[in-house]
Protein backbone atom coordinates (compact mmCIF):
# COMPACT_ATOMS: atom_id res chain seq x y z
CA UNK A 1 0.00 0.00 0.00
CA UNK A 2 1.30 3.44 -0.91
CA UNK A 3 1.53 5.73 2.06
CA UNK A 4 1.64 9.45 2.42
CA UNK A 5 2.92 11.57 5.25
CA UNK A 6 1.73 15.14 5.52
CA UNK A 7 2.81 17.79 7.99
CA UNK A 8 0.65 20.87 8.12
CA UNK A 9 1.89 24.12 9.59
CA UNK A 10 3.81 22.51 12.47
CA UNK A 11 5.16 24.70 15.24
CA UNK A 12 7.16 23.32 18.10
CA UNK A 13 9.05 25.09 20.87
CA UNK A 14 11.15 23.84 23.74
CA UNK A 15 12.03 25.43 27.04
CA UNK A 16 15.53 25.06 28.41
CA UNK A 17 15.12 23.64 31.91
CA UNK A 18 18.14 25.55 33.24
CA UNK A 19 17.76 28.96 31.69
CA UNK A 20 13.96 28.96 31.39
CA UNK A 21 14.35 30.37 27.87
CA UNK A 22 11.87 29.11 25.29
CA UNK A 23 13.15 28.57 21.77
CA UNK A 24 11.04 28.12 18.68
CA UNK A 25 12.34 25.00 16.97
CA UNK A 26 9.80 24.44 14.19
CA UNK A 27 8.16 27.52 12.71
CA UNK A 28 5.11 26.63 10.70
CA UNK A 29 6.62 23.74 8.79
CA UNK A 30 4.51 22.11 6.09
CA UNK A 31 5.68 19.08 4.17
CA UNK A 32 4.35 16.21 2.05
CA UNK A 33 6.34 13.00 1.84
CA UNK A 34 5.28 10.42 -0.69
CA UNK A 35 5.89 6.83 0.06
CA UNK A 36 8.31 4.46 -1.53
CA UNK A 37 10.99 7.09 -1.51
CA UNK A 38 14.39 7.44 -0.03
CA UNK A 39 14.33 10.86 1.57
CA UNK A 40 17.20 12.59 3.30
CA UNK A 41 16.51 15.51 5.60
CA UNK A 42 19.51 17.72 6.06
CA UNK A 43 20.41 21.22 7.13
CA UNK A 44 22.39 23.12 9.77
CA UNK A 45 22.58 21.93 13.35
CA UNK A 46 19.80 23.33 15.50
CA UNK A 47 17.67 23.84 12.40
CA UNK A 48 14.94 21.47 13.59
CA UNK A 49 15.71 18.21 11.75
CA UNK A 50 15.58 15.92 14.79
CA UNK A 51 12.53 17.73 16.18
CA UNK A 52 10.77 17.20 12.86
CA UNK A 53 11.57 13.47 12.96
CA UNK A 54 10.39 13.23 16.56
CA UNK A 55 7.15 14.97 15.69
CA UNK A 56 6.65 12.35 12.96
CA UNK A 57 7.17 9.52 15.46
CA UNK A 58 4.98 11.17 18.10
CA UNK A 59 7.84 11.63 20.55
CA UNK A 60 7.29 15.39 20.43
CA UNK A 61 3.82 16.87 20.37
CA UNK A 62 3.66 20.00 18.21
CA UNK A 63 2.36 23.24 19.75
CA UNK A 64 0.16 23.65 16.72
CA UNK A 65 -0.33 22.09 13.30
CA UNK A 66 -1.39 18.60 12.25
CA UNK A 67 0.34 15.37 11.24
CA UNK A 68 -1.37 13.03 8.77
CA UNK A 69 -0.55 9.48 7.77
CA UNK A 70 -2.40 8.27 4.67
CA UNK A 71 -4.87 11.10 5.10
CA UNK A 72 -5.63 10.22 8.69
CA UNK A 73 -4.90 12.80 11.40
CA UNK A 74 -2.42 11.14 13.78
CA UNK A 75 -1.38 14.30 15.68
CA UNK A 76 -2.84 12.95 18.91
CA UNK A 77 -1.83 9.32 18.35
CA UNK A 78 0.87 8.21 20.80
CA UNK A 79 4.25 6.65 20.02
CA UNK A 80 3.22 3.01 20.60
CA UNK A 81 0.20 3.35 18.36
CA UNK A 82 2.20 5.06 15.62
CA UNK A 83 4.66 2.18 15.80
CA UNK A 84 1.76 -0.25 15.35
CA UNK A 85 0.62 1.77 12.36
CA UNK A 86 3.97 1.29 10.71
CA UNK A 87 6.37 4.06 11.69
CA UNK A 88 9.77 3.06 13.09
CA UNK A 89 12.48 5.30 14.52
CA UNK A 90 16.22 4.84 14.94
CA UNK A 91 17.57 7.07 17.71
CA UNK A 92 20.74 9.08 17.35
CA UNK A 93 21.66 8.11 20.92
CA UNK A 94 19.95 4.79 21.61
CA UNK A 95 19.58 3.64 25.24
CA UNK A 96 21.23 0.57 26.75
CA UNK A 97 19.26 -2.24 28.34
CA UNK A 98 20.73 -4.35 31.08
CA UNK A 99 19.07 -7.74 30.85
CA UNK A 100 17.80 -7.52 27.28
CA UNK A 101 19.87 -9.25 24.62
CA UNK A 102 20.29 -8.25 20.99
CA UNK A 103 18.06 -11.23 20.14
CA UNK A 104 15.38 -9.97 22.57
CA UNK A 105 15.38 -6.48 21.04
CA UNK A 106 15.20 -7.75 17.46
CA UNK A 107 12.32 -10.05 18.52
CA UNK A 108 10.42 -7.15 20.14
CA UNK A 109 11.00 -5.10 17.01
CA UNK A 110 9.74 -7.84 14.67
CA UNK A 111 6.84 -8.71 17.00
CA UNK A 112 7.52 -12.39 16.43
CA UNK A 113 10.18 -15.02 16.98
CA UNK A 114 12.74 -14.52 14.26
CA UNK A 115 14.43 -17.44 12.52
CA UNK A 116 18.17 -17.63 12.94
CA UNK A 117 18.70 -16.77 9.26
CA UNK A 118 16.62 -13.61 9.65
CA UNK A 119 18.50 -12.54 12.79
CA UNK A 120 21.77 -13.04 10.92
CA UNK A 121 20.54 -11.01 7.97
CA UNK A 122 19.62 -8.00 10.11
CA UNK A 123 22.93 -8.04 11.95
CA UNK A 124 24.99 -8.66 8.83
CA UNK A 125 23.36 -5.70 7.13
CA UNK A 126 24.81 -3.43 9.82
CA UNK A 127 28.19 -5.16 9.71
CA UNK A 128 27.88 -7.31 12.84
CA UNK A 129 28.37 -11.05 13.12
CA UNK A 130 25.32 -12.76 14.58
CA UNK A 131 27.34 -15.43 16.37
CA UNK A 132 29.16 -12.73 18.35
CA UNK A 133 26.21 -10.54 19.19
CA UNK A 134 22.85 -12.34 19.32
CA UNK A 135 23.07 -13.38 22.95
CA UNK A 136 24.89 -10.33 24.21
CA UNK A 137 23.08 -7.96 26.48
CA UNK A 138 22.55 -4.47 25.12
CA UNK A 139 24.41 -3.04 28.11
CA UNK A 140 27.54 -1.01 28.76
CA UNK A 141 29.74 -3.84 27.46
CA UNK A 142 28.86 -2.67 23.94
CA UNK A 143 30.74 0.22 22.37
CA UNK A 144 28.84 3.27 21.14
CA UNK A 145 29.30 2.16 17.54
CA UNK A 146 28.05 -1.38 18.25
CA UNK A 147 25.04 0.03 20.07
CA UNK A 148 24.26 2.30 17.14
CA UNK A 149 24.48 -0.50 14.62
CA UNK A 150 22.19 -2.69 16.76
CA UNK A 151 19.76 0.23 16.89
CA UNK A 152 19.68 0.36 13.10
CA UNK A 153 19.20 -3.42 12.94
CA UNK A 154 16.17 -3.20 15.26
CA UNK A 155 14.58 -0.59 13.01
CA UNK A 156 15.18 -2.84 9.99
CA UNK A 157 13.66 -5.77 11.93
CA UNK A 158 10.39 -3.90 12.41
CA UNK A 159 9.79 -4.19 8.68
CA UNK A 160 7.84 -0.94 9.07
CA UNK A 161 6.67 0.82 5.88
CA UNK A 162 8.04 4.11 7.23
CA UNK A 163 11.52 4.01 8.72
CA UNK A 164 13.09 7.12 10.21
CA UNK A 165 16.79 7.19 11.07
CA UNK A 166 18.18 10.09 13.09
CA UNK A 167 21.82 10.60 12.10
CA UNK A 168 22.57 6.91 11.61
CA UNK A 169 26.17 7.73 10.70
CA UNK A 170 26.97 9.39 14.04
CA UNK A 171 29.32 7.31 16.16
CA UNK A 172 29.98 4.73 13.45
CA UNK A 173 33.41 3.95 12.06
CA UNK A 174 34.20 4.43 8.41
CA UNK A 175 34.01 0.79 7.35
CA UNK A 176 30.63 0.30 8.99
CA UNK A 177 29.48 3.56 7.49
CA UNK A 178 30.14 2.24 3.99
CA UNK A 179 28.28 -0.94 4.87
CA UNK A 180 25.42 1.20 6.15
CA UNK A 181 25.06 3.23 2.96
CA UNK A 182 24.85 -0.08 1.08
CA UNK A 183 22.18 -1.26 3.50
CA UNK A 184 20.08 1.81 2.85
CA UNK A 185 20.50 1.39 -0.87
CA UNK A 186 19.49 -2.28 -0.73
CA UNK A 187 16.52 -1.39 1.44
CA UNK A 188 15.34 0.99 -1.22
CA UNK A 189 15.88 -1.50 -4.03
CA UNK A 190 14.23 -4.42 -2.24
CA UNK A 191 11.30 -2.67 -0.72
CA UNK A 192 9.72 -0.22 -3.08
CA UNK A 193 6.77 0.19 -0.68
CA UNK A 194 9.07 1.35 2.11
CA UNK A 195 9.66 5.00 2.85
CA UNK A 196 13.08 5.65 4.31
CA UNK A 197 13.61 9.03 5.96
CA UNK A 198 17.17 9.66 7.01
CA UNK A 199 18.44 12.68 8.87
CA UNK A 200 22.01 13.11 7.83
CA UNK A 201 24.87 15.46 7.13
CA UNK A 202 26.77 12.89 5.10
CA UNK A 203 27.20 13.65 1.45
CA UNK A 204 27.40 9.95 0.64
CA UNK A 205 23.99 9.30 2.17
CA UNK A 206 22.51 12.47 0.70
CA UNK A 207 23.79 11.74 -2.80
CA UNK A 208 21.92 8.44 -3.06
CA UNK A 209 18.57 9.92 -1.99
CA UNK A 210 15.55 10.20 -4.27
CA UNK A 211 14.86 13.53 -2.71
CA UNK A 212 16.61 15.83 -0.28
CA UNK A 213 14.75 18.11 2.09
CA UNK A 214 16.62 21.06 3.52
CA UNK A 215 15.45 22.33 6.89
CA UNK A 216 16.79 25.52 8.45
CA UNK A 217 15.43 27.81 11.16
CA UNK A 218 12.55 25.41 11.67
CA UNK A 219 11.31 25.85 8.12
CA UNK A 220 11.48 24.12 4.79
CA UNK A 221 14.28 25.90 3.00
CA UNK A 222 14.82 23.72 -0.04
CA UNK A 223 13.76 20.52 -1.67
CA UNK A 224 14.88 18.60 -4.70
CA UNK A 225 17.18 15.91 -5.98
CA UNK A 226 20.66 15.69 -4.51
CA UNK A 227 22.34 17.51 -7.40
CA UNK A 228 20.10 20.52 -6.75
CA UNK A 229 20.38 20.56 -2.98
CA UNK A 230 24.00 19.59 -2.35
CA UNK A 231 25.39 22.97 -3.56
CA UNK A 232 22.89 24.77 -1.31
CA UNK A 233 24.05 22.76 1.67
CA UNK A 234 27.61 23.89 1.07
CA UNK A 235 26.61 27.51 1.08
CA UNK A 236 24.46 26.85 4.13
CA UNK A 237 27.35 25.27 5.96
CA UNK A 238 29.54 28.22 5.04
CA UNK A 239 26.93 30.69 6.22
CA UNK A 240 26.33 28.72 9.41
CA UNK A 241 30.07 28.89 10.05
CA UNK A 242 30.15 32.63 9.61
CA UNK A 243 27.10 32.95 11.80
CA UNK A 244 28.78 30.88 14.53
CA UNK A 245 31.85 33.11 14.43
CA UNK A 246 29.80 36.25 14.65
Amino acid at each position, binding site marked *: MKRMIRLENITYSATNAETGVTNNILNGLSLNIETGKYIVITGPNGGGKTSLAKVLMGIYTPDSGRVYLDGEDITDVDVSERAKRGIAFG*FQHPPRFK*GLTVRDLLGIAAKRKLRHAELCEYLTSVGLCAADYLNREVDSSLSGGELKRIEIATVLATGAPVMIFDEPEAGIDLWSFHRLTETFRTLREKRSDCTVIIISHQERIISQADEVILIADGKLSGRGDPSEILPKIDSFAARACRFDKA
Partner: protein
Amino acid sequence: MAEQNLIRQSLLEKVADLHSVPDGAYNLRENGKPAGRRSTGEIRIENKEGAPGIVVTVADGTKNKSVHIPVVITETGINETVHNDFLIGTDCDVLIVAGCGIHNSGEEKSAHDGVHSLVIGENSKVKYVEKHYAEGVGTRSMKPKMTVRLGRGSTLDIETVQLGGVSDSVRETVIDADEDASLVITERIMTSGVETVDSRTTVNLNGKGSSARINSRSVARDDSLQIFYPAINGNAECFGHVQCDSIIMDRAKVRSIPEICANDVEAKLIHEAAIGKIAGDQILKLQTLGLTAEEAEERILAGLLK
Protein backbone atom coordinates in the same frame (compact mmCIF):
# COMPACT_ATOMS: atom_id res chain seq x y z
CA MET B 1 -9.06 -30.74 52.01
CA ALA B 2 -9.25 -30.69 48.23
CA GLU B 3 -8.59 -26.95 48.29
CA GLN B 4 -5.68 -27.49 50.64
CA ASN B 5 -4.19 -29.96 48.14
CA LEU B 6 -4.52 -27.46 45.32
CA ILE B 7 -2.72 -24.78 47.33
CA ARG B 8 -0.01 -27.26 48.23
CA GLN B 9 0.38 -28.33 44.59
CA SER B 10 0.57 -24.72 43.42
CA LEU B 11 3.23 -23.89 46.00
CA LEU B 12 5.28 -26.95 45.01
CA GLU B 13 5.16 -25.92 41.38
CA LYS B 14 6.26 -22.38 42.20
CA VAL B 15 9.18 -23.26 44.47
CA ALA B 16 10.41 -26.53 43.00
CA ASP B 17 8.82 -26.82 39.53
CA LEU B 18 7.21 -29.99 40.82
CA HIS B 19 4.04 -31.25 39.19
CA SER B 20 4.20 -34.71 40.72
CA VAL B 21 6.49 -36.77 42.93
CA PRO B 22 9.99 -36.01 41.66
CA ASP B 23 12.35 -38.55 40.18
CA GLY B 24 15.17 -39.53 42.46
CA ALA B 25 15.65 -38.57 46.06
CA TYR B 26 13.31 -36.15 47.76
CA ASN B 27 12.13 -34.95 51.14
CA LEU B 28 8.92 -32.99 51.50
CA ARG B 29 8.23 -30.99 54.61
CA GLU B 30 4.71 -29.70 55.14
CA ASN B 31 3.35 -27.56 57.97
CA GLY B 32 6.24 -28.27 60.27
CA LYS B 33 6.28 -32.05 59.76
CA PRO B 34 7.98 -34.50 57.40
CA ALA B 35 5.47 -35.40 54.68
CA GLY B 36 7.27 -37.78 52.36
CA ARG B 37 10.75 -39.00 51.60
CA ARG B 38 12.67 -41.20 49.24
CA SER B 39 16.30 -42.17 49.50
CA THR B 40 18.10 -43.81 46.60
CA GLY B 41 21.15 -46.03 46.49
CA GLU B 42 23.41 -43.03 46.00
CA ILE B 43 21.54 -40.28 47.89
CA ARG B 44 20.56 -41.09 51.47
CA ILE B 45 18.18 -38.84 53.43
CA GLU B 46 17.93 -39.32 57.21
CA ASN B 47 16.57 -37.37 60.14
CA LYS B 48 19.00 -35.02 61.79
CA GLU B 49 19.67 -35.89 65.39
CA GLY B 50 18.86 -33.37 68.06
CA ALA B 51 17.04 -30.89 65.79
CA PRO B 52 14.28 -30.84 63.19
CA GLY B 53 15.76 -31.37 59.76
CA ILE B 54 17.56 -33.84 57.57
CA VAL B 55 20.99 -35.06 56.65
CA VAL B 56 21.48 -35.70 52.93
CA THR B 57 24.47 -37.84 52.09
CA VAL B 58 25.56 -38.11 48.46
CA ALA B 59 27.94 -41.00 47.72
CA ASP B 60 31.24 -40.44 45.92
CA GLY B 61 30.92 -40.51 42.13
CA THR B 62 27.16 -39.85 42.00
CA LYS B 63 26.50 -38.35 38.57
CA ASN B 64 23.51 -36.56 37.03
CA LYS B 65 21.24 -37.09 40.01
CA SER B 66 18.93 -34.70 41.78
CA VAL B 67 17.50 -34.24 45.24
CA HIS B 68 14.40 -32.15 45.91
CA ILE B 69 13.72 -30.88 49.42
CA PRO B 70 10.75 -28.52 49.19
CA VAL B 71 9.01 -27.02 52.19
CA VAL B 72 5.40 -25.90 52.11
CA ILE B 73 3.42 -24.15 54.80
CA THR B 74 -0.32 -23.77 54.24
CA GLU B 75 -1.42 -23.18 57.83
CA THR B 76 -1.18 -19.96 59.78
CA GLY B 77 0.94 -19.75 62.92
CA ILE B 78 3.64 -22.24 61.88
CA ASN B 79 7.07 -21.04 62.95
CA GLU B 80 9.95 -23.40 62.44
CA THR B 81 13.71 -23.55 62.23
CA VAL B 82 14.95 -26.52 60.24
CA HIS B 83 18.55 -27.72 60.00
CA ASN B 84 19.51 -29.48 56.79
CA ASP B 85 22.99 -30.86 56.22
CA PHE B 86 24.34 -31.92 52.85
CA LEU B 87 27.40 -34.10 52.70
CA ILE B 88 28.43 -34.40 49.07
CA GLY B 89 31.21 -36.83 48.19
CA THR B 90 33.97 -36.49 45.64
CA ASP B 91 33.49 -36.50 41.84
CA CYS B 92 29.74 -35.94 42.02
CA ASP B 93 27.45 -34.03 39.69
CA VAL B 94 24.18 -33.28 41.45
CA LEU B 95 21.29 -30.86 41.46
CA ILE B 96 19.75 -29.77 44.75
CA VAL B 97 16.35 -28.12 44.56
CA ALA B 98 15.40 -26.50 47.84
CA GLY B 99 12.70 -23.90 48.17
CA CYS B 100 9.93 -22.80 50.41
CA GLY B 101 6.36 -21.81 49.72
CA ILE B 102 4.07 -20.26 52.30
CA HIS B 103 0.34 -19.72 51.95
CA ASN B 104 -0.84 -17.88 55.02
CA SER B 105 -4.53 -17.04 54.98
CA GLY B 106 -4.73 -16.51 58.73
CA GLU B 107 -3.84 -13.74 61.12
CA GLU B 108 -0.78 -15.24 62.72
CA LYS B 109 2.74 -15.16 61.37
CA SER B 110 4.10 -18.17 59.51
CA ALA B 111 7.84 -18.50 59.21
CA HIS B 112 10.38 -20.93 57.88
CA ASP B 113 14.02 -20.50 58.77
CA GLY B 114 16.13 -23.02 56.90
CA VAL B 115 19.64 -23.50 58.18
CA HIS B 116 21.62 -25.28 55.50
CA SER B 117 25.12 -26.62 55.66
CA LEU B 118 26.83 -27.96 52.54
CA VAL B 119 30.13 -29.75 52.50
CA ILE B 120 31.15 -30.45 48.92
CA GLY B 121 33.90 -32.95 48.23
CA GLU B 122 36.78 -32.57 45.79
CA ASN B 123 36.03 -32.22 42.07
CA SER B 124 32.29 -32.29 42.52
CA LYS B 125 29.83 -30.20 40.63
CA VAL B 126 26.72 -28.98 42.41
CA LYS B 127 23.87 -26.81 41.32
CA TYR B 128 21.73 -25.51 44.15
CA VAL B 129 18.41 -23.84 43.39
CA GLU B 130 16.34 -22.16 46.07
CA LYS B 131 13.07 -20.43 45.27
CA HIS B 132 11.02 -18.56 47.81
CA TYR B 133 7.40 -17.74 47.26
CA ALA B 134 4.61 -16.68 49.60
CA GLU B 135 1.03 -15.48 49.46
CA GLY B 136 -1.84 -14.71 51.83
CA VAL B 137 -2.85 -12.24 54.50
CA GLY B 138 -0.72 -12.98 57.56
CA THR B 139 3.00 -12.22 57.80
CA ARG B 140 5.18 -14.63 55.80
CA SER B 141 8.78 -14.68 56.89
CA MET B 142 11.87 -16.60 55.71
CA LYS B 143 15.32 -16.43 57.18
CA PRO B 144 17.61 -18.83 55.33
CA LYS B 145 21.15 -19.39 56.52
CA MET B 146 23.69 -21.29 54.55
CA THR B 147 27.27 -22.26 55.17
CA VAL B 148 29.27 -23.98 52.45
CA ARG B 149 32.64 -25.62 52.28
CA LEU B 150 33.74 -26.01 48.67
CA GLY B 151 36.36 -28.71 48.28
CA ARG B 152 39.33 -28.55 45.98
CA GLY B 153 38.44 -28.34 42.28
CA SER B 154 34.71 -28.35 42.95
CA THR B 155 32.14 -26.05 41.42
CA LEU B 156 28.97 -24.70 42.95
CA ASP B 157 26.27 -22.80 41.13
CA ILE B 158 23.74 -21.24 43.49
CA GLU B 159 20.56 -19.74 42.11
CA THR B 160 18.18 -18.04 44.51
CA VAL B 161 14.89 -16.56 43.44
CA GLN B 162 12.38 -14.56 45.42
CA LEU B 163 9.92 -12.77 43.20
CA GLY B 164 7.15 -11.87 45.57
CA GLY B 165 5.01 -12.41 48.60
CA VAL B 166 7.62 -12.90 51.32
CA SER B 167 6.95 -10.18 53.91
CA ASP B 168 10.41 -10.18 55.34
CA SER B 169 13.47 -12.20 54.55
CA VAL B 170 16.97 -12.23 55.91
CA ARG B 171 19.47 -14.32 54.01
CA GLU B 172 22.91 -15.10 55.32
CA THR B 173 25.36 -17.11 53.29
CA VAL B 174 28.96 -17.88 54.13
CA ILE B 175 31.08 -19.83 51.67
CA ASP B 176 34.66 -21.05 51.99
CA ALA B 177 36.39 -22.10 48.79
CA ASP B 178 39.45 -24.32 48.62
CA GLU B 179 42.06 -24.51 45.87
CA ASP B 180 40.66 -24.28 42.30
CA ALA B 181 37.10 -24.28 43.52
CA SER B 182 34.71 -22.08 41.61
CA LEU B 183 31.48 -20.50 42.68
CA VAL B 184 28.70 -18.65 40.89
CA ILE B 185 25.86 -17.08 42.86
CA THR B 186 22.90 -15.63 40.99
CA GLU B 187 20.34 -13.88 43.11
CA ARG B 188 17.07 -12.54 41.72
CA ILE B 189 14.72 -10.57 43.91
CA MET B 190 11.59 -8.57 43.42
CA THR B 191 9.81 -6.92 46.34
CA SER B 192 6.59 -4.96 46.49
CA GLY B 193 4.23 -3.57 49.14
CA VAL B 194 6.14 -3.17 52.39
CA GLU B 195 8.30 -6.27 51.94
CA THR B 196 11.85 -6.20 53.19
CA VAL B 197 14.89 -8.16 52.07
CA ASP B 198 18.24 -8.29 53.78
CA SER B 199 20.72 -10.41 51.88
CA ARG B 200 24.25 -10.96 53.15
CA THR B 201 26.77 -13.11 51.37
CA THR B 202 30.36 -13.63 52.39
CA VAL B 203 32.72 -15.62 50.22
CA ASN B 204 36.18 -16.53 51.42
CA LEU B 205 38.47 -17.48 48.57
CA ASN B 206 41.03 -19.39 50.60
CA GLY B 207 42.62 -21.62 47.98
CA LYS B 208 44.94 -20.77 45.14
CA GLY B 209 43.02 -20.63 41.83
CA SER B 210 39.62 -20.30 43.47
CA SER B 211 37.05 -17.98 41.95
CA ALA B 212 33.67 -16.47 42.74
CA ARG B 213 31.09 -14.49 40.83
CA ILE B 214 28.21 -12.98 42.73
CA ASN B 215 25.51 -11.57 40.51
CA SER B 216 22.61 -9.93 42.26
CA ARG B 217 19.69 -8.47 40.33
CA SER B 218 16.69 -6.92 41.98
CA VAL B 219 13.60 -4.83 41.50
CA ALA B 220 12.14 -2.87 44.43
CA ARG B 221 8.58 -1.58 44.00
CA ASP B 222 6.06 0.30 46.16
CA ASP B 223 7.37 0.91 49.69
CA SER B 224 9.65 -2.11 49.87
CA LEU B 225 13.15 -2.12 51.22
CA GLN B 226 16.19 -4.09 50.07
CA ILE B 227 19.65 -4.33 51.54
CA PHE B 228 22.48 -6.23 49.87
CA TYR B 229 25.81 -6.95 51.42
CA PRO B 230 27.87 -9.19 49.17
CA ALA B 231 31.48 -9.52 50.26
CA ILE B 232 34.42 -11.40 48.79
CA ASN B 233 37.61 -11.95 50.73
CA GLY B 234 40.57 -12.89 48.56
CA ASN B 235 42.92 -14.83 50.82
CA ALA B 236 45.07 -16.36 48.07
CA GLU B 237 45.72 -16.07 44.34
CA CYS B 238 42.09 -15.92 43.26
CA PHE B 239 39.49 -14.10 41.20
CA GLY B 240 36.32 -12.53 42.56
CA HIS B 241 33.62 -10.44 40.92
CA VAL B 242 30.60 -8.89 42.61
CA GLN B 243 27.89 -7.31 40.54
CA CYS B 244 24.70 -5.80 41.94
CA ASP B 245 22.04 -4.24 39.72
CA SER B 246 18.83 -2.87 41.13
CA ILE B 247 15.88 -1.12 39.61
CA ILE B 248 14.13 1.12 42.08
CA MET B 249 10.50 2.19 41.65
CA ASP B 250 7.82 4.14 43.47
CA ARG B 251 8.87 4.88 47.06
CA ALA B 252 11.14 1.87 47.53
CA LYS B 253 14.60 2.00 49.07
CA VAL B 254 17.63 -0.01 48.04
CA ARG B 255 20.94 -0.18 49.80
CA SER B 256 23.78 -1.98 48.10
CA ILE B 257 27.11 -2.43 49.87
CA PRO B 258 29.45 -4.65 47.89
CA GLU B 259 32.73 -5.32 49.60
CA ILE B 260 35.93 -6.73 48.22
CA CYS B 261 38.85 -7.39 50.47
CA ALA B 262 42.24 -8.55 49.26
CA ASN B 263 44.46 -10.27 51.79
CA ASP B 264 46.87 -11.59 49.20
CA VAL B 265 48.84 -9.70 46.58
CA GLU B 266 47.65 -12.15 43.90
CA ALA B 267 43.98 -11.67 44.68
CA LYS B 268 42.10 -10.04 41.80
CA LEU B 269 38.76 -8.64 42.87
CA ILE B 270 36.19 -6.45 41.16
CA HIS B 271 32.92 -5.01 42.26
CA GLU B 272 30.22 -3.16 40.39
CA ALA B 273 26.97 -1.89 41.82
CA ALA B 274 24.22 0.16 40.23
CA ILE B 275 20.85 1.32 41.44
CA GLY B 276 18.51 3.35 39.27
CA LYS B 277 15.01 3.77 38.06
CA ILE B 278 13.97 2.63 34.61
CA ALA B 279 15.23 5.31 32.27
CA GLY B 280 12.66 7.23 30.27
CA ASP B 281 14.59 6.67 27.06
CA GLN B 282 14.41 2.89 27.59
CA ILE B 283 10.62 3.02 27.81
CA LEU B 284 10.48 5.35 24.82
CA LYS B 285 12.67 3.08 22.71
CA LEU B 286 10.39 0.09 23.35
CA GLN B 287 7.34 2.27 22.63
CA THR B 288 8.78 3.06 19.21
CA LEU B 289 8.84 -0.73 18.71
CA GLY B 290 5.11 -0.91 19.44
CA LEU B 291 4.97 -1.73 23.17
CA THR B 292 2.81 0.38 25.48
CA ALA B 293 4.59 2.15 28.35
CA GLU B 294 3.32 -0.53 30.77
CA GLU B 295 4.43 -3.38 28.50
CA ALA B 296 7.81 -1.72 28.09
CA GLU B 297 8.26 -1.45 31.85
CA GLU B 298 7.32 -5.12 32.39
CA ARG B 299 9.68 -6.20 29.60
CA ILE B 300 12.58 -4.28 31.17
CA LEU B 301 11.92 -5.74 34.63
CA ALA B 302 11.53 -9.26 33.23
CA GLY B 303 14.80 -8.84 31.36
CA LEU B 304 16.70 -7.83 34.46
CA LEU B 305 15.24 -10.68 36.50
CA LYS B 306 15.40 -13.47 33.92
